[in-house]
């Protein structure tokens, strides 16, 4: 085990930090303020890296672990920024029975990512999603707004698709 932080370097700005501190001081002391602060912070930064959680921890005088516990409990919070291209593999029933799980695993291993992760260059992030309404094309995945259906899940097919995207 080691500190599990995002592979993408933190690029927070002074303006973002100022806004975050304002948000915290406005909500500090209210019941349930941590959730609202985390939501606002995720809105500001797009995700909740250790740098942001440490600011919240210090300002609220709450241990970092407690904040991390809340962040990892709720799926609405993310520890990683989204990539320039967001890969979403459908895990709806139809796609799942047609082998979407294997496709997701294959892409994850090609990119060296876990679900929710982002490549260190920020190009791809990956997540699973529920039915996108294209069951006739199962198994399906999306990369931003591009839909790829009737996937066979071969290495060549996946490599060809990923090769279309660059920084």
């Amino acid at each position, binding site marked *: *085990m*080691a*500190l*599990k*932080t995002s592979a993408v370097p933190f690029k927070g700005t002074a303006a973002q930090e100022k806004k975050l501190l304002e948000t915290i001081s406005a909500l500090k002391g209210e019941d349930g303020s941590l959730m609202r602060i985390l939501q606002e912070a995720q809105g500001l930064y797009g995700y909740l890296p*250790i740098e942001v*959680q440490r600011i919240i*921890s210090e300002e609220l005088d*709450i*241990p*970092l*672990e*407690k*904040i*991390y*516990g809340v962040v*990892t*409990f709720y799926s609405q919070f993310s*520890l990683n920024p989204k990539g320039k291209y967001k890969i979403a593999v459908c895990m709806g029933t139809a796609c799942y029975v047609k082998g979407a799980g294997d496709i997701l695993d294959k892409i994850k291993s090609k990119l060296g990512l876990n679900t929710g992760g982002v490549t260190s260059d920020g190009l791809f992030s990956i997540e699973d999603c529920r039915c996108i309404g294209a069951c006739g094309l199962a198994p399906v995945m999306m990369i931003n707004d591009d839909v790829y259906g009737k996937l066979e899940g071969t290495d060549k097919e996946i490599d060809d698709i990923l090769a279309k995207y660059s920084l």
Partner: protein
Amino acid sequence: MVNIKINGMECAVAEGTTVLEAARAKGIRIPTLCWLKGTNEIGACRICVVESKGTGKLLASCVYPVSKADEGREFLTHSPNVLESRKTTLELLLSDHDKKCLSCDRSGKCDFQDLCRSLGVDDDERFEGARNQYEIDDSALHMYRDNNKCINCRRCVAECGVTQGVGVIGANDRGFRTNIGCAFDMDLAESACVSCGQCINVCPTGALSEKDNTKEVWAALGDPEKVVVVQTAPAVRASIGEAFGFPMGTPVQGKLAAALRQLGFKAVFDTNFGADLTVMEEATELLQRVQNKGVLPMITSCSPGWVRYCEAYYPELIPNLSSCKSPQQMTGATIKTYWAKKMNVEPSKIVSVSVMPCVAKKFEISRLDQKGQGEYPDMDISITTRELAKMLDKAGIRFAELEECVFDSPIGSGTGAAVIFGATGGVMEAALRTAVWKLTGESKDSPVEFKEVRGTKGIKYAEYDVGGTKVKVAVASGLANAKKICDEIKKGESDLHFVEVMACPGGCVNGGGQIFVPSDTRNFTDIKAERAKALYTLDEGNKVSRKSHESPEIKQLYDEFLGEPGSHKAHEILHTSYRKSRGIK
């Protein structure tokens, strides 16, 4: 009062009493697992369920306060439904538990194992399915975490966060993947863990344990080239008897000295000697700070968990910490300098072992600032009270039957002031005995007892008129209590002169390395008070003296070796420095 029934027995209880407490008053022990009285009252594990008669509902009795609405209600504490539910809960927990009981360090002292036995679990594989697999976190010097044995009861989390106000561990992720760990899954060693070990004391399984250093002790004892010596802290004698059938609070120092000798140590020393030495140095430092308008209040530095807490959480108070090393380190430093010379032993051949009620001592001996003269560390190996009990067990030494003996001199006799170091307020009282004596013309009749600073309350304040000077003191044990005093000092609101802080609630008697206490006893006995009684008994009956400055061995040490308290030589050997910690909070 509300009239309820428990298993048919009429029972009038005050509103707000939990069903668990009401049953206890009727002589029924409802089993518990996650419940830690006053600390972890979350009703999560469902082991303590009772049945509300008529409705069939199962309620968590630890968090069910009786209210007016319960008038006339009957609770069943061992109905077939209740017993089946408890058993099933345990079997479900077992389905994601590493069941290597035979090789588990906790076996025989494990709450979870005890419950499985007493509640009749007869198939530890009743529920099969996925199992979480975790890496063991052995990054820290003082302990390891094996989450494969963790049952997510959160007792450690509550102890760390609520009692100690540290909170470096907590529940991460959710559902089946829920696991106890640090923020961002960092290693414990990277975090600002203060190494107090209270989490280990309350763990109901083998998930948390001190690092086992007994192997190194056995190896040293078997090495004819080495001179292996041992010292044992005041609080050890108040707890180790529990492992060999003595009631809690029985002082067993004579048997302890005999047992250590039987293990094969060349010399058996008493850390009480180091405690007396600490008093001499610390009282001198305090008087100097007061006279020279130095940084006040001065805060004690005997508790390595507290020192680590200060370095991580209140680095601005580092100048307030006494520069005195702890009694363990002072004893260690004296062994490798004064004793080595006196006995004509080459210091590099000495393996100096300490038996401590503490796991933070394992960390303390590794500190770079804890070196005496030369290139060798003050101390070589530190083991806990529990580890010593294991060694005695392994060696087949029948502790209870041993003939009592005394420690080796010099470094073997301690005063009454030294032995109370193991209880909260003890260091303060011991230091006051000597400081007041010094300030009031060194009279033989200077006061001995300072009862205001005794007792297990988390924070105690007292004020003494010493020869016309007002001396204000405070004593805190448990780091959440220490935090309150630290905040007062930080804000400049404090006019205190001297503060004693012990990381563990109640002081060393309740240290993270003491003999395990089953959770049922823990919830219904004041361990801190019971064990402290042993130390105050030894103080009152001390044949040498009850004041550190009257110890003949201490006088001899200063005469032959150190000169005066606070001398240049004393500073070289017995004092140290601190620095801000980089641990992640």
